[in-house]
């Protein structure tokens, strides 16, 4: 069981998808989806087990100590010139993201429970695609083999395209195809990089294993010294990969698909998009770019940092200008993910930890915000911030939870958003002696002032939507029902828990692995 645990987690949703072929009653379709996503979540909790003792990734360990490892031959040519393994495993970097994925997927299934109210058809197809999407996301996080990683990465594309395009809002077709083309354009560059990374080393050491590529000195030597079409191999491949990942993050200037996709997607899909899909970009950079091309990471740190800082400020300013509630949350995601990019670019302990924490924190707060928006959209059928007002009065429970969610996103101390942003800013500041050099202080100062912008647009939004005089058209809105509270409460609890006990809830699990990545990158 321990060997195949991850496979079970990854493929339980697929089994659920196949099972749905044979289910016809609407109620049962939802139940089956809930059953399988719930089972995946429960199983994924077991992933904590090796990390609880605190030994995982402790000093003396090396990058690539992975747990629940499973390795089976998958594709090979007859002369073994080309070997792909089904190789999965988790370390401190992927474990929190796996649990986050199963949690958000489960909540998204719950959030889809009122599918009939959307007045759209094809419920069965919707849940099947949702489950397939979950498999794709989980597989990406647990894959150790680059080829497998790529396959799972692409598996997500099609379900997402349909989930936005069929069940989305008014401009869904445009949003869906834009998402599809952007992401595919990024991933074909990744494909070329993967090809080159496999074939450049000598035949005797060729591998797709992401761990092996980072650890094998022979491969590393080739990556440092080779050239590709006249350009230095390392930096060029780093950029190919980075473009693919930055589109997912999304980092300025690759972000334009995100507002469209988020706004047009149905609420549960927005939750998944913001909560999990964006994290894949950050995860990819930490898993593929940094450990395998440490030199390039050092050389390109300023570029990454610049993109991060621009995303922070640009996203926040855009968010401030929005009158569409959902668009505001979407742009806030760009701003928040900018901290992730900046934290990674800093290449300091605090920076990497902050980036990781910010990913998880954003993975909790942004699905919450999107769901909060969805709740009033279902009641009011519009999302114009300026037409709302005084919602807290008619919906006290909802109002309270909304405050927690948006304050977590704002980065209020004692809530999860705070820790990540502070760590990133500290880490950037400390990077003066590391990768960012002279740029460290200006970047840190700009990033810190980004927090003010964030506070501005969120507080202003809360004022316009939740506070103020009660408006007659919203006075009779029912408060959050039990299902809605059931979705919001776990996220709210997590937001508080991560804010108060950051060490026990996250840092203890991830620090070891992150330090090993950092050590490799600084060597």
């Amino acid at each position: 069981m321990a060997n195949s645990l991850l496979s079970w987690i990854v493929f339980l949703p697929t089994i659920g998808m196949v099972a749905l072929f044979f289910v016809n009653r609407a109620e049962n379709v939802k139940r089956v989806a809930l059953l399988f996503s719930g089972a995946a979540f429960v199983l994924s909790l077991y992933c904590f087990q090796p990390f609880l003792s605190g030994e995982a990734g402790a000093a003396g360990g090396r990058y690539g100590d992975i747990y629940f490892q499973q390795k089976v031959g998958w594709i090979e040519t007859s002369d073994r010139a080309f070997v792909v393994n089904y190789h999965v495993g988790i370390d401190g970097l992927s474990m929190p993201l796996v649990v986050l994925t199963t949690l958000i997927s489960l909540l998204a299934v719950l959030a889809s429970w009122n599918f009939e109210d959307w007045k759209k058809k094809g419920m069965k197809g919707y849940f099947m695609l949702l489950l397939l999407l979950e498999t794709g996301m989980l597989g990406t996080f647990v894959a150790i083999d680059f080829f497998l990683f790529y396959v799972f990465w692409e598996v997500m594309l099609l379900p997402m395209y349909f989930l936005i395009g069929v069940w989305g809002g008014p401009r869904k077709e445009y949003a869906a195809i834009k998402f599809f083309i952007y992401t595919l354009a990024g991933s074909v560059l990744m494909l070329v990089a993967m090809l080159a990374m496999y074939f450049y080393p000598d035949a005797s050491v060729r591998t797709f294993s992401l761990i092996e590529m980072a650890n094998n000195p022979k491969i590393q030597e080739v990556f440092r010294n080779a050239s590709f079409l006249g350009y230095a191999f390392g930096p060029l491949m780093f950029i190919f990969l980075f473009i693919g990942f930055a589109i997912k993050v999304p980092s300025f200037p690759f972000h334009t698909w995100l507002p469209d996709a988020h706004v047009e997607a149905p609420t549960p899909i927005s939750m998944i998009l913001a909560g999990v899909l964006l994290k894949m970009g950050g995860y990819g950079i930490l898993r593929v770019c940094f450990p395998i091309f440490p030199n390039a990471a050092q050389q390109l740190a300023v570029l990454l940092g610049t993109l991060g800082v621009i995303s922070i400020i640009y996203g926040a300013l855009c968010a401030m200008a929005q009158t569409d509630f959902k668009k505001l949350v979407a742009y806030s995601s760009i701003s928040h993910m900018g901290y992730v990019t900046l934290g990674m670019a800093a290449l300091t302990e605090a920076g990497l930890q902050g980036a990781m924490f910010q990913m998880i924190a954003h993975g909790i707060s942004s699905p919450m915000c999107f769901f909060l928006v969805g709740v009033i959209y279902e009641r009011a059928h519009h999302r114009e911030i300026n037409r709302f007002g005084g919602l807290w009065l008619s919906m006290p429970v909802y109002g309270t939870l909304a405050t927690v969610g948006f304050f977590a996103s704002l980065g209020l101390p004692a809530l999860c958003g705070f820790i990540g942003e502070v760590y990133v800013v500290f880490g950037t500041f400390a990077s003066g002696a590391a990768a960012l050099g002279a740029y460290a202080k200006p970047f840190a100062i700009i990033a810190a002032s980004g927090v003010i912008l964030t506070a501005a647009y969120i507080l202003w939004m809360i004022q316009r939507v939740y506070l103020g005089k009660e408006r007659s058209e919203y006075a009779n809105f029912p408060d959050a029902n039990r299902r809605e509270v059931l979705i919001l409460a776990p996220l709210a609890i997590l937001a508080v828990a991560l804010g108060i006990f950051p060490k026990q809830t996250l840092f203890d699990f991830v620090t070891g692995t992150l330090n090993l990545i950092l050590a490799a990158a600084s060597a």
Partner: protein
Amino acid sequence: MHETLGLTMPLLAKIWLPAAGDLRLVLPDLLLIATIVAILLAPLLSRRSLRVPGLLALLGAVVGALACWFVIGDVAASGSDLFGVAARDGSSGPAMLVADRVSLFFRMFLMVFLIVIVAMWMMTDGEREQNPHEFLTLLLASALGMSLMTSANHLLMVIVAIELASLPSYGLAGFDKFRRTAAEASVKYVVFGAATSGLMIYGASLLFGMFGTLHVPTLAARLATGGPGGPLLAVGLLAFFAGVGFKISAVPFHFWCPDVFEGASLPVATWLSVASKAAGLLLLLRMVFAFAGHAGGEYSQYVLPTISYGVGVFAILTCTFANFAAYRQTNIRRMLAYSSIAHAGYMLMAGAIVVRSSGYENAMSAVVAYLLIYMFMNLGAFMTLGLVAADTGEESMKSFAGLGWRDALTAAAMTVCLISLVGLPPLGGFYVKWWILAALGGAAREANMPFLWVLALVLALNTAVSLYYYARVVWQMYFVPPEHEKPLRAPGAGKALVVACALLLILTGTIWVRPLKSMADRYTSNMYTVSAARTDAGDGLAAAVRP
């Protein structure tokens, strides 16, 4: 007199008494010929019924496929020459044909595809067809031409095989002679075909003039040992390539393709989109590999890279142009035509790997796997188009509107085929594209040819470009509301065929990846290789002309 007799007798003996082993290896072709004869004779016994010739064709194809299966094990390692014409001095001369596993595998592939096409034809047009015997005769004759194309080893044979494949195809394209578009398609096809044939024969004559032989390995050997070169050689090779490029519709020899696909009946379009391209590609690769079989000095330094660049540039032009041209199409048939051109371009890239290494077995293996998967993807797409066209009466983008809500299963299967054509995992289309990439990357490393990396980049970027037009069909099926909600009226067998194709693509993309690859590897190992004994043989007819 005596001399002529001396030349003629062994020749006649060869023709009338070929070695039994040789005959065994061309058994599938002989079966095709027998089937054609049977179909032509059938009206004498059964009047003009549809079923008899249809079933005869099916029977012939099934038996042919089985024959390939049984014979494939007998092939000698590194292939064998067939029907060598005796030279003047009595030694065995150059062979017209070769047999190796790839050529037999291709025949099997062709027979299986033939079965499907005949079945498809019987389901759609066959019932109304007035002249089923003539139609099937043409179809089988073009199949015979294609199967000869893949084992031709002599430029004369290449020309004969290409003509044998082309002439019936012209007839097939315009078979529905009362439809204007069919007649137009046929005329365009003939005009283009005749022009490129002329070019090809001209090119062959130039090569013959320069090297005194038409036997491909001998030609390559003489070229490698410093035969005449320069512009004349380039013109000769290019003109010859035009003929092959026409068959695989490589840009700029592709103009016939969209019009013919649009005008021809659906089974014929499907047939040409896969079989004709497959045959042309294998022929081209075999010739390129014959050139790659030699090395040394100037030849390795100038001639081989020039061939590699030439083929590579054609491949780049072909797939890039086709993908952008497909953007503007509103007729699905034309879109699929451009898509087939693009795929031919991807496969053509394998031809740029002209290096003496394991590279070309990898390349061939990738192409064989690609062809197999490509057959299923295209079959699914064309069949769905046929079902939709039969139901709505048109083949425009719009006719697909809302198909996802009218017939969920067929639309889902069509989506799988289209996404596999894009080349996304976990579908078969991704892996075969990947193997082409891997062959390019591996050879680029081994032979230090950066140009192959450029090809790999172009292929990858083209994948992203192609997504848009395939996704537009998916978009129509799911995102555009249908004109009416009535379910799709279509024969169950047709739907089953589409679903079967989709299922195969999913399976080859998940659990059958390894079997697919190892099968392709098995049939491309021990390819016909050029050895000294095979190239030294002079060309009996050419002896007098040789300098």
